[in-house]
């Protein structure tokens, strides 16, 4: 029983982290139609910035500063990069971010080297949160969940209670109308793109030390979050939320099962399961769990 509980918590905390990543991606995609291929690279930048800042002045300032820095870089990228290629269409934008992912990875190699950096969980969050009959659950996992939920509630409030939030929400469903109403769409774009990147950066801050901060971390998590947005339904925040938790829990529980099929254990294929889920979903429900629009 406690095994089940711990695994559920593991699944949820990982799923929430995935949602922090996929929500930024989804917001940007819904509003701008741009799929930011470099999204996971911003996650990586968040982790490295947090490593750098926390080495100088501590983890708590890093928790705020690193996402802001990443967001600022995101805005610069939007202003001086994406906006230039906007006229060539969405494929060009996607390819631009694809190239950007290459460049960010190489830049990280150059600045921080090619192996892992020593970015650690701060001492005050190190240790067990609670114990149940021999199993212990780390504080940091709890902290990750807390941060994720706080951020998500904040986003939800911002989207539903502020003016810019309403504009963004309207743009999710009726992008042309919003533009027609004369909102400064380019500036909204820049803010949203920066905001999406900052979300990825924040995920990096709390994911970088829970896992490992190294140049391959972007490539490791990138495909999974893309699968999440497809499974959830392109452009659907609620879908991304459900898909993140689903995939987080699915991967966790697949590991726990010792069932095997044709000599292959379920646990062996755990990380491939999201892709299988995606394939099945496409066969039976091509729009995704909660998708409304065509790709």
């Amino acid at each position, binding site marked *: 029983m406690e095994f089940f509980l711990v695994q559920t918590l593991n699944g949820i905390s990982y799923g929430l982290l995935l949602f922090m990543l996929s929500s930024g991606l989804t917001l940007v995609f819904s509003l701008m139609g741009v799929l930011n291929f470099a999204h996971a690279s911003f996650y990586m930048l968040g982790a490295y910035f947090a490593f750098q800042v926390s080495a100088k002045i501590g983890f708590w300032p890093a928790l705020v500063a690193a996402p802001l820095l990443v967001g600022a870089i995101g805005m610069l990228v939007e202003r001086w990069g994406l906006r230039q290629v906007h006229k060539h269409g969405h494929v060009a934008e996607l390819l631009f971010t694809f190239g950007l992912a290459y460049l960010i990875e190489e830049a990280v190699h150059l600045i921080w080297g090619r192996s892992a950096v020593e970015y650690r969980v701060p001492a005050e969050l190190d240790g067990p949160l609670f114990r149940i009959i021999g199993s212990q659950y*780390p504080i940091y996992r709890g902290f990750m969940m807390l941060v994720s939920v706080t951020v998500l509630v904040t986003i939800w409030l911002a989207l539903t209670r502020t003016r810019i939030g309403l504009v963004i929400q309207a743009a999710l469903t009726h992008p042309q109308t919003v533009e027609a109403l004369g909102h400064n769409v380019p500036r909204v774009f820049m803010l949203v793109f920066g905001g999406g990147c900052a979300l990825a950066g924040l995920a990096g801050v709390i994911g970088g030390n829970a896992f490992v901060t190294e140049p391959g971390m972007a490539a490791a998590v990138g495909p999974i979050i893309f699968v999440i947005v497809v499974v959830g339904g392109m452009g659907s925040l609620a879908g991304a939320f459900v898909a993140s938790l689903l995939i987080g829990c699915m991967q966790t529980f697949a*590991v726990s099962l010792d069932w095997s099929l044709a000599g292959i*254990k379920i646990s062996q294929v755990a990380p491939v399961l999201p892709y299988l889920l995606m394939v099945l979903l496409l066969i039976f429900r091509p729009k995704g769990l909660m998708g409304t629009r065509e790709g």
Partner: protein
Amino acid sequence: MASAGLDPLSGPFANVGEQGLAEFRFTVDAINKRGGVLGGRKLEVIGFDNKVSPQESLNQLKRVIDQDIRYITQGNSSAVAGALIEAVNRHNERNPGKEILYLNYAAVDPAFTNDKCSFWHFRFDANADMKMESLTTWMAGQKNIKKVYLLNQDYSFGHAVKKAARELLARKRPDIQIVGDDLHPLGKVSDFAPYVAKIKASGADGVITGNWGNDMSLLVKAGREAGLDVIWYTYYAGGLGTPTAMGEAAAGKVKIIAEYHSNVANNKAAKWDADYRKQAPKGNPDFYFLRGKIMWDMFAKALNQAKSADAKAVALALEGMKHEGELGEVEMRKSDHQLIQPLYIMTLVKSAAKGGPKEAKIDLEGSGLAPVTEARLEAYTSAQPTSCAMKRP
């Protein structure tokens, strides 16, 4: 006398390639200062970037051949090594008189000195099975080990570790229970917490794993977070960023099997190690490949004995050669071209500077984790019979 070092010099694994190259150059410089080879000729190692890709390695091999270089060395990735062995065999068969010799310092797939053995290939690292042989020999004497868990990467090396561990434990310590046996995809797991929960639930007191890189560091970190109290029996926890990433979480918990570490007793390479560190590049401060030094020393000796730079003559001089290494005698076994050398089981502990035992003088990558010897296993313990049917030209 140029030799080619084929290893990754760009991309994610460039640091691994650079580390090897830096140590080789240090060794080769020393040989040249001693007077070089073949009566005064200087050795030289030229780096070729193979991007850890088998196909790209073959491209670079073509380049090596174009430049009329006859000696290559490579170590990272058995996939690359397998491709190179095949390619060298083919080249030597198709181009008699222009043979190439391949010195392998780190690719540990047992097949290379068994079914796939080649006259043109020499391995200076103990292969995966030999290391497991030594590790299990030592484990057999550790009565407190009751239940072990096998967790490995789902690819050829992981499979080899898993298979060898099962067979050898069953032979040497049938009373040890294998309470779990999992494979996970290589480099695709970012959250090891579920695996750790499973290990915990199994009641294991030890985990045998061939994991390397992030798969190694993430596993140990996740274990510590969840309060998992096990001993990790590993191959590759000692370098390439892993000690840094694991951090002090690993102190006292991680055991590694290898041919060398800097805090080994009666270390005749101690001065060498210290000298290397003085000029080592800042990213890779450690002296890691003692076997690399042994490789170049033996190679130089073989050149001098053969009195010729011809690859075949050098190969004939190299096979069966005995050499007084820094930590005892080693032998390049004639039957399969596998170096038989003593191995060490080490434990990572807090370095002396951080309050650890005083023999833990030198830490790894400045991480505060330092290796201390748990056991020395003489060369014969790891020697295994070979299925190699060597075809000599």
